[in-house]
């Protein structure tokens, strides 16, 4: 993407210990800085939205996406990363 330096990581699923720690670790290992985090837990259902900076990643986007998806599988959560542009396109004029 043209100015694709930001992406959004979303985590959805049942709450358990260490979700943020594990996700942050995957990002840290790949040189990715977290810009913003928000999370809510309703009736044990966890959802977290993280905005991250992709300007100095140490791996390609595909690899990062696969690593997060694999972590999601291990933790029984849905973890995905999408370029910020999709949200800007849909919600900003």
């Amino acid at each position: 993407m043209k100015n694709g330096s930001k992406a959004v990581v979303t985590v959805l699923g049942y709450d358990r210990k260490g979700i943020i720690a594990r996700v942050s670790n995957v990002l840290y290992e790949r040189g990715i800085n977290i810009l913003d985090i928000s999370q809510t837990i309703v009736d044990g259902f966890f959802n977290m939205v993280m905005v991250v900076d992709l300007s100095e990643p140490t791996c390609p986007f595909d690899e990062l996406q696969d690593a997060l998806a694999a972590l999601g599988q291990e933790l029984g959560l849905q973890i995905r990363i999408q370029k910020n542009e999709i949200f800007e396109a849909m919600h900003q004029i």
Partner: protein
Amino acid sequence: MIQTSQILETLRMIDQEKLDVRTITMGISLFNCVCDDTNRLASRVYNRIARQAENLVKVGEEIQREIGVPIVNKRISVTPVSLITGAVEDPLPVARALDKAAKETGVDFIGGYSALVQKGMTAADRRLIESIPQALSETDLMCSSVNVASTRAGIDMDAVRLCGRAVKALAEKTRDQDGLGCAKLVIFSNAVEDNPFMAGAFHGPGEGDCAVSVGVSGPGVVKRALENVKGAPFDEVAETIKKTAFRITRVGQLVALEASRRLGVPFGIVDLSLAPTPAIGDSVAHILEEMGLEKCGTHGSTAALALLNDAVKKGGVMASSHVGGLSGAFIPVSEDIGMIEAAACGALTLDKLEAMTCVCSVGLDMIAVPGDTSAATIAAIIADEAAIGMINNKTTAVRLIPAPGKKVGDFVEFGGLLGRAPVIPVHPFSSEEFIARGGRIPAPLHSLRN
């Protein structure tokens, strides 16, 4: 800054409401392939497409991964083949080359085995139309279309008669698949040159060398939005649809610009259509029912569809720098679970569908009729639909499947995006002598419009 709730809303649209980009379609001009040797022409066509569309599928998949929205199909449309086969005797080698190129590039469909004959047919046009049954039955990914009428030219009734025969012959040739070949043939009135949707996509003669266009989808998203305004007046219904269409179209615009940049090909248009699939929650009929109709096809359906079609355009048009194609709400029967149910229970008839095509984006689409329907009756249905398009200055089309051996009440099964359809009745009275006349129905008057 984007709010968390907006991010989660987007995810819900993708996961639960089946928001997707239906297609990235690359339009490729084949005029520079023209020559008078059939085999050389076919090989030039193959090379031109295989080279130009080499990265189309890869780029589509990359964009899908990065933005997280499914891009269901990658497709190619080409210059109407009758325009490049004027100097050769047989268009079939070009058909095979198109199919081979589609398979080589990995796209889902290739469209443009087409002829534009609204005013009259050249020898090449006639050869192409007559070859359609053979061409579509021996290829897998190729789609075909014929434009038989326009507001400015009237209706070419000789072409209508030929097309009626072609549909019938094609059904017979694909008898073992319930006449599936007919799902790949569209007969148009006022065909547009930049439509990215199949089976009617072709790269019009007024287009440049190459362009990428995007067709969006998202009936499920509109249906869900309307659930929040239950019982509200239509003003509110229209506003809700407009806002939703705007968002859906913005996704299409993003994908189109990105594909254009990565492929190094000009951006053509975004087609802001609501294209249903047979999946639950992806139905245009259910949007109409959400407006308060017990079943799609009952009284009020035409008004509901008119509102939907218009609001989709109004909402989408500001979201994209170039809107084109068919842009509106599609009402294919076999590809829409709500339409299938409505046709199966008798709420939706061929006559009501015809009325609805006056206000929808295209026409009589993916409708199964009895296998013993005559070529003349099919031609007469095409003529009726072409007349609606001609008089109302809009695109209309016919994609009928006279399912061999099937009777009213039977089902035809196509699978995948093409779905399944109940066989619905046609009128039993003959149109034989009407179709036998041939000639042209003159272009209509553009004033005194009542």
